[in-house]
């Protein structure tokens, strides 16, 4: 028989109140864990994209119309119907400072073609640098030779074509050399052909719609390179994809701060629930506290009983809140994943943090009720019966 037995028995006896306190803490902790896990997962996804793109640079024609989404990222305004970049101008890139850091220059010609009743976006690219610019591609079949076409996963599905089939484009039958496995990007909806084939098909000889550039180094002066490219191609927009991602990260930072505030408010409310319930519980137990004091319990023993009760509930709430928070985050990510697999790794740090947070919150909210209980006059407490 010790104080923990008294606390445990009391919790088991007052299940309703214990459940209420538990629920208050679990909701607070689960919300915080859920939000943090979700934000971390989204952040790491964006960071992953940032790493995939490295210091890639995108050159687009200077226009203020038609936004282009590409690679899952909303990139600036590009018009592939109205304005083009002269392919010959790209030779100037070989002479800019830091030209040695350029690993690949990938001109892209975009055009829309009709295949029977379906309109499809075709992209003419330089397949000799696609392994640098599109390292995530997994081609089922072969890379296309001149005159052949490589289909994105969705394009192949919609057109009901497979490797070896023929794609009729503007009166030309192009054999399908392969299909790109699902990438989760807009590449899935495209048909890729050699640059010269696209220029011929869309009558854009010597022109390109956009240019993708892969810079070699991790710490190369990307901002300066963008400046030099702009000088070399004054009629084009030049932007570092890293900057786009960076902007997203900044937006995510704002969202993170907002999420932290929401979590703080919910935790505060959880703390209030604990405070009010514990106060009620202490008042209900006036006579018991009187007995404890009469038989020789010190004030600190009474406080210890209250803290043990809230501590035990908080520990449970921390564990349950962590599990529930992970489940919330997983459900939210699955809902947004659009069929892609979602993984949330177990984080010992987060679990320990959740338990620590729950215990700290539970104990902090119990300070005043514990103080009230300890200050009760034993004589008054016994007379309350």
């Amino acid at each position, binding site marked *: *028989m010790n104080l923990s037995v*008294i606390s445990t028995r009391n919790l088991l006896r007052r299940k309703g109140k214990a459940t209420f306190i538990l629920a208050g803490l679990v909701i607070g902790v689960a919300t915080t864990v859920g939000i943090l896990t979700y934000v971390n997962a989204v952040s790491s996804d964006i960071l992953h994209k940032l790493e995939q793109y490295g210091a890639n640079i995108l050159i687009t024609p200077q226009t203020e119309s038609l936004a282009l989404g590409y690679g899952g990222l909303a990139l600036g305004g590009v018009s592939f119907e109205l304005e083009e970049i002269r392919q010959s101008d790209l030779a100037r890139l070989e002479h800019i400072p830091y030209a040695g850091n350029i690993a690949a220059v990938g001109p892209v010609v975009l055009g829309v073609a009709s295949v029977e009743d379906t309109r499809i976006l075709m992209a003419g690219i330089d397949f000799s640098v696609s392994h640098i610019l599109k390292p995530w591609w997994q081609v089922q079949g072969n890379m296309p030779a001149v005159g052949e076409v490589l289909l994105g996963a969705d394009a192949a599905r919609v057109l009901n074509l497979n490797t070896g089939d023929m794609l009729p484009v503007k009166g030309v039958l192009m054999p399908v050399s392969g299909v790109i496995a699902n990438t989760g990007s807009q590449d899935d909806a495209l048909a890729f052909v050699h640059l010269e084939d696209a220029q011929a098909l869309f009558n854009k000889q010597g022109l390109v719609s956009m240019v993708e550039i892969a810079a070699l180094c991790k710490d190369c002066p990307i901002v300066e390179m963008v400046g030099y490219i702009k000088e070399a191609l004054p009629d084009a927009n030049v932007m570092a994809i890293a900057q786009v991602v960076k902007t997203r990260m900044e937006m995510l930072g704002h969202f993170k701060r907002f999420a932290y505030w929401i979590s703080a408010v919910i935790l505060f409310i959880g703390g209030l629930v604990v405070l009010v319930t514990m106060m009620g519980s202490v008042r209900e137990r006036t006579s*018991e506290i009187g*007995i404890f*004091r*009469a038989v*020789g319990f*010190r004030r600190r023993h009474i406080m210890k009983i209250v803290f043990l009760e809230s501590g035990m509930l908080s520990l449970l709430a921390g564990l349950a809140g962590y599990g529930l928070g992970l489940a919330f985050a997983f459900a939210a990510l699955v809902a947004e994943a659009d069929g892609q697999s979602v993984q949330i790794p177990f984080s010992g740090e987060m679990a320990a943090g959740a338990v620590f947070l729950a215990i700290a919150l539970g104990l902090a909210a119990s300070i005043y009720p514990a103080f009230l209980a300890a200050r009760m006059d034993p004589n008054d407490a016994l007379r309350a*019966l």
Partner: protein
Amino acid sequence: MSYIIARDLSKTFGAGQAAVKAVSNISFEIASGEFVSIMGESGSGKSTLLGILGAMNAPTSGRLVVDGIDIYGLNVEKQADFRREYLGFVFQGFHLVPYLTVLENVMLPLAVMPLGKKRKQQMASHALSQVGLAEKAFRLPGEISGGEKERTAMARAIVNEPPILLADEPSGNLDSKNSAELMALFEKFNASGMTIIMVTHSMECAAYAKRRMIISDGRLKSDYFPASNAA
């Protein structure tokens, strides 16, 4: 030699015109091993006096010394230690903790003492067997009779073998048979050297005490040793 010395104990509740003097300048001395009953009408101040003797209700003025310790010169935590080491309480309403078993209720004063689990259980079992309740050790208070509850409260009061037992209307909720059994226990513990101070309305119960104090309007009206005891 006096074990308990009360000097000019007074207790006033409220202030100004609403002030009520519950205990007024009461003085007495009690030797170790005495069995004292305190009698008086309702509202006479006897329970207030017992609260003062129990280190739970500080007097407005006066001094209480037990075993050489000036009780109200101690801070509240030391007063709690004093209660634990020197006093056993038996209340009229039993005051058992409803979610603890009979054995655990008896062990309550031991919960904050630095003793092993086994030792605590041995002491509680011994106390229960002294009051004849060993077989009900694992029942909850809601599962035993009024007389058994009172005996549980008695076992709790003596479990740490305190030198003083304070009882407030211990037979108030009991029938005559259970009341007589309880008084027999009081006599037994008094015979073993325990000092007993019992507040009661009942003449039958008071007759078991060797000394009788009568309180009226907060004052000690009489303090005497009856010629013979009922027992």
